[in-house]
């Protein structure tokens, strides 16, 4: 096999790789594997400190499950629109693709907006990073997630912009697929957070806290 024209991450068709797998997709899955450990540590910290005695407010004082459920539906819906955007790209329909990408971004912005509102109302009820272990672990965990969502929104809007200005080759769906993997992962992390943090009941403090 003669000279291999070098072809690197994020670019077009399939570079000649030993495995036949594109570099960027392999890299993305390795990255998502490492992100499992990142969010796992934050979630574990939350679970470790859940229910420990401390000054109010506690989760039961501030959580608005119906509100957060709607937020969760929104984020799940954004995963659907994301996958529809990819399907459109694979059909070479970049107009539809941009539409679905915009939907995804807007749903994402709705989610983040919802979180900002939620955090603000918690803050007004007396919950800050410094108040107690709940504030500490809750805001840092959901904050990290929110930052990840925001980065995702930036990437989605960038894809729309690049497609609109002709910088995204119309025969390619690969970049959309890559951003999609990241976006779905962020959604999947929220599935865990919603269940573990919001839905699983917080034991009342006063019991044997831990270790």
């Amino acid at each position, binding site marked *: 096999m003669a000279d291999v024209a070098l072809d690197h991450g994020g670019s077009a068709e399939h570079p000649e790789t030993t495995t036949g797998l594109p570099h960027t997709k392999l890299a993305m899955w390795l990255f998502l*594997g490492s992100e499992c450990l990142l969010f796992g540590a934050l979630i574990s910290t939350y679970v470790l400190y859940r229910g420990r005695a401390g000054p109010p407010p506690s989760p039961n004082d501030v959580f608005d*499950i119906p509100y957060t459920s709607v937020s969760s539906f929104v984020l799940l819906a954004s995963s659907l629109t994301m996958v529809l955007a990819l399907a459109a790209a694979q059909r070479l329909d970049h107009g539809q693709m941009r539409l679905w990408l915009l939907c995804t971004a807007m749903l994402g912005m709705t989610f983040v907006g919802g979180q900002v509102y939620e955090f603000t109302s918690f803050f007004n009820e007396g919950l800050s990073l410094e108040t107690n272990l709940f504030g500490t672990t809750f805001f840092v965990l959901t904050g990290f997630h929110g930052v990840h969502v925001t980065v995702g929104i930036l990437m989605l809007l960038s894809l729309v912009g690049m497609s609109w200005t002709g910088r995204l080759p119309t025969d390619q769906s690969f970049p959309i697929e890559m951003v*999609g993997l990241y976006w779905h992962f962020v959604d999947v992390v929220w599935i865990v957070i919603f269940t573990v943090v919001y839905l699983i009941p917080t034991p009342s403090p006063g019991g044997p806290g831990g270790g």
Partner: protein
Amino acid sequence: MGVEPDQAVQPAQHAAHASHAGGHPSPKEYVRIGLILAVLTALEVAASYSGVSGSLMIPTLIGLAIVKFALVVLWFMHLKFDDRRYSRFFVMGLSGAATLYLIVLISFGVFSR
């Protein structure tokens, strides 16, 4: 939701990725999965309000979350249809995280109440 994508257009085979092992959900199937995810979420929320004891509620909630997780990863992220090697690395991270953090939490006595 409630949008019905154009069913007449088949995904162009030559534009499809080499990494597709064949078997590729159609937009309609994706919508179906989206609806299932919504239903599961609703079930989760209902379970959390049901007032059953923790030892029943918590496994139920976790179980539902796992199913949702799997649906998104296997279908939306296409892992079910893609090359096994992607799964390998993701599972390394996922199982590693689950195992290691579970051990840490157990050592803190979080599960012995």
